[in-house]
């Protein structure tokens, strides 16, 4: 078995068969049933053939009605085993010629459902290990013959097509069989029978034309043996070709190798191009973020920060006054403070549309059933996504942070305020006393300037500068906080999106696995 499961290149058939099994499962429902069934049949046949060992090489004589299969069969057997006759069609049940005592031959023939078996007593010029089958025709009015042929053509190791000069270009043979066997060039032979009816020049022309047709079908490598089964012409070469096949014993593996490549090709023909990139949720996060109005939420938070910071950094005097003086009515334009984050979740239409767009983007290049499945899976993610997004939005609990510089700034501002007030008060006292003519001492001077004036100027300038600095700091702080909130929402929404579109990612991954499996099937 260990030797059996390796083909001539030393590559194991077992992993290729497993890959085919996975590919068949993944393709079911996504490709025409007959294509998938055929691939599944390859898997089954290969397993069953491998289980029956490589002691025998099964060669089937196939061809149209009246091409002389049975005559050739009898010539090879050296005995009249198969019925030959002039009435068409002749052979109904396949007959087996078993050369030598082959281990497992019976089990193999049981599997092939060939009941008529014949083992020649004497040497017939064929190697032990060879089983030659005479098949019924595939093109007569007996349609049950075609069924038998079709089954055996799928199961035998080597096909020896028996053609004749009259019918070698028959459409049914080429369109019905040979076109599906281009991967099996190594396990096919063609015998052009009845060449005795042709003069040598005609024979040459006929073989050339047949070779041209075969080459056009990708079977240029298939050897053609011009023979005459009745007169024995060319049978020697055919025998030695068969003997060589029996010697090599690789035919069953080569047959399976061809089957696997054919199955992979067939499945791949119904597969589009895989998506180039892994699923990228970012565009969807953006859309859901917009639909959930993350920017508005972040703006509202930044505004709350600004209000809190302004309140906390008011100078003590202003704070005292604010209780008395009402602030101006709120701006006549929209204020982010009004925004109620709890009020709305993203619109379902927007989310569905975004999901459809996502499926379209990743479905490009795929075949229709996969595109449809992606769309279906994507749209099914719509409700979970809305719910997850709603949860995600609720998870973000942003409170404007208190900053350490608020208090010192407020104090500094208060100090400047105080200095300015002292300066102004002092100046007022000086002015009043001068006006009333009260005696007053000159105020002390600093650097040639009167101290009250210095205090007033320093206080006012300091107050103004502090206010400017405060506004700048608050603006920067608000912006940073807003960005942080925005990021927090995005992170949460990205999580929600990732979770919601996980089924889509699974589909895409499955598709990519299928592509890889088919590559593995080819080997």
């Amino acid at each position, binding site marked *: 078995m260990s030797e059996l499961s390796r083909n001539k290149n030393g590559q194991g058939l077992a992993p290729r068969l497993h890959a085919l099994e996975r590919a068949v499962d993944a393709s079911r429902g996504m490709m025409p049933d007959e294509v998938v069934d055929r691939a599944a049949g390859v898997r089954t046949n290969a397993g069953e053939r491998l289980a029956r060992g490589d002691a025998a090489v099964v060669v089937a004589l196939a061809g149209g009605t009246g091409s002389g299969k049975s005559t050739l069969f009898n010539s090879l057997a050296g005995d009249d085993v198969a019925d030959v006759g002039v009435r068409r069609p002749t052979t109904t049940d396949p007959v087996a010629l078993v050369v030598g005592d082959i281990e497992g031959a019976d089990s193999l023939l049981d599997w092939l459902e060939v009941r008529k078996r014949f083992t020649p007593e004497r040497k017939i010029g064929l190697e032990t290990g060879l089983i030659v089958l005479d098949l019924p025709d595939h093109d007569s009015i007996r349609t049950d013959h075609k069924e038998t042929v079709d089954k055996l053509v799928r199961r035998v190791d080597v096909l020896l097509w028996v053609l004749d000069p009259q019918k070698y270009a028959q459409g049914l043979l080429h369109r019905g069989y040979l076109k599906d066997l281009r991967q099996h060039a190594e396990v096919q032979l063609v015998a052009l029978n009845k060449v005795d009816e042709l003069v040598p020049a005609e024979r040459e022309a006929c073989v050339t034309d047949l070779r041209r047709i075969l080459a056009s079908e990708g079977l240029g490598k298939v050897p053609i043996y011009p023979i005459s089964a009745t007169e024995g012409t060319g049978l020697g070469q055919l025998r030695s070709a068969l003997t060589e096949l029996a010697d090599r014993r690789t035919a069953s593996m080569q047959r399976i190798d061809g089957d696997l490549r054919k199955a992979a090709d067939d499945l791949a023909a119904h597969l589009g191009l895989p998506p180039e990139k892994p699923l990228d949720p970012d565009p969807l996060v953006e859309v859901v973020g917009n639909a959930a109005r993350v920017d508005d939420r972040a703006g509202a938070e930044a505004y709350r920060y600004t209000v809190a910071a302004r309140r906390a950094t008011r100078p003590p005097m202003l704070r005292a006054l604010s209780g008395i003086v009402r602030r101006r009515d709120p701006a006549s334009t929209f204020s982010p403070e*009004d925004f109620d984050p709890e009020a709305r979740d993203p619109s379902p239409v927007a989310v569905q549309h975004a999901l459809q767009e996502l499926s379209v983007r990743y479905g490009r290049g795929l075949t229709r059933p996969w595109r449809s499945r992606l769309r279906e899976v994507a749209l099914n993610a719509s409700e979970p996504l809305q719910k997850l997004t709603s949860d995600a939005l609720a998870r973000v609990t942003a409170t404007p942070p208190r900053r350490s510089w608020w208090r010192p700034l407020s104090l500094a501002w208060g100090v400047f305020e105080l200095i300015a007030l002292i300066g102004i008060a002092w100046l007022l006292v000086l002015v009043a006393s001068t006006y009333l003519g009260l005696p007053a001492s000159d105020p002390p001077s600093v650097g040639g300037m009167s101290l009250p004036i210095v205090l007033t100027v320093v206080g006012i300038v300091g107050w103004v500068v502090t206010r400017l600095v405060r506004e700048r700091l608050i603006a920067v702080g608000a912006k940073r906080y807003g960005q942080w909130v925005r990021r927090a929402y995005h992170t949460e929404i990205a999580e929600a999106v990732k979770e919601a579109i996980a089924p889509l990612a699974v589909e895409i991954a499955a598709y990519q696995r299928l592509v890889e499996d088919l590559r593995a099937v080819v080997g």
Partner: protein
Amino acid sequence: MDEATDTAPLVTALRDLRHVISACSFSLSADKADERRAERDHLRREIDGLIARISSLGSPLLVVVGGVTGSGKSTIVNTLVGRAVSRTGVIRPTTESPVLIVHPVDAHWFTDDRVLAEFVRVEREGRKTTVDTDDETARLQLIRDEDIPLGLALVDAPDIDSLSVRNRAIADALLDAADVWLWCTSAAKYADQESMRYLARAGARRTALAVALTRVDLEHVDELAGDFREKLAERASIEPELFTVETARVIDERLPRPAVGSIERWLRELSGPLVRRSRRRQTMEGALDIMSADVAGLIAWVADETGTLGVLSDVINRTIAQSRHDFGNALDDGRAMRDEVLLRWNRFAGTSGMLALVERAGERASAWARSLMGALSGERAEEEEQVREAVAIDVASLATQLLDLASGRIVTEWGTIPAGKELLEANPELAEAPPDLEVRTRKTVDEWQSTVVRLVETKGAKRRLRARWLTAVINATATGAIIATLAQTGGLTGAEAGIATAAGAANQALLTRVLGAANMRWLISSARADLERRFTELLAVHRRRFTEVLAAAAPSPKLIAQLEERADAVQKVRSCLN
């Protein structure tokens, strides 16, 4: 001349039938289309053949030599004519271009296109020439030969079963037009399925035919002929004249003359005026007999397509209805518009002095009020514009998204139906959004907004808003109504549910004061109805993209009736042949 006038109604009836048959395009038949079209073409060619023969009843009897590849058709023809007129050889298929051999006196029947109109004539004398077969049109080589009995035309057709699909099409065309078939098959191939299928077809329409079994070894003649006769009776229900042609050496592409002696005699008999007439009649009557059944076959297929059409249009209709419903839902749940637009408007409506202005609207406008209006109008106009723009963007994108989703759904569902899949592949633009979709939806929303303004104008005119300077108030009220229409929830109008906003009161107050509660409800429901109507129109345009493609592929609804009627008409007038 008499014959021509007598048969005129039949020719007309056949032409009419042919015309209706041509209308069966079978574009919704998916993988069955090829088979159905082939059958339709068969029928059409048969009718052509009938018309050709009815119009020239005196023309030579068309004997078509057909059969399987390698059965020796051309060799037999060459032997009959006595010279190599048709190419033979071991390279299959041999005869690619059919050859028509006729007595020089009869040749005039075939030089124009009364018979076998679809073939281009190639006149040729004597030996074969190479004929360019790359050409798409089939050629018919016309050979005049005095060995052919008068009143007969012998056609060597290509095989029906070789690799060459073209050969088969040509052979079908010739066999459909034939008066008599001479079917050739060899001793090795006589039980071929394909060959038997053709013979069964000929049997079903009682085509006059004879069969030649070629390459028979002398010793097996009786056995094979007997077996073949049995099989013909059993499988094709025919008991034709059977000729056996024995295996013989082919010299100069001919068999020894005696090998085809019986065929020659048969041909000579066939050329007698009475036999000719009866054979032609037999084939024509047979074709007419089966015609109704053939047309009934077409009718069944057309009916099948009509069913498919129903399934495909059902997908469209269901999806479009769903989209309408979804649009209504989106309006109901108030998510057609972003919240900030709503908030922004309510704040504006409550604070811009609008209410105060409206309060004074009924009084005589004082100079003071005018100046205040002037001061406010700039700010208000800008604000209104922004709000309406924002609304337009939101509603248009909702509509666009719904239309896109509808397309996606139709495309997906069609993709699961073979005929739908084929339509999508033939019309790939269906899967893409139409390029002008966004422009159209936006235009629709803009028009809707204009309609709301007009509604406010008409209602307002009856109430207090007569003065011209109150245009500004009308605009503001219209914007308010637009907002209110989109902000209502659960299908309840603003007055009943309270406009569902955090600060809806201001807008509501504005609308109530300008219009009155009853009018406001009327206005909002009219605006809503108008918006839904406009969306329905957008959907209808969208729907047409699919229905037009479908209608182009689908059979006309009258087709079945027409087929039945015309087939009956043919049967009614066929008695003129007798």
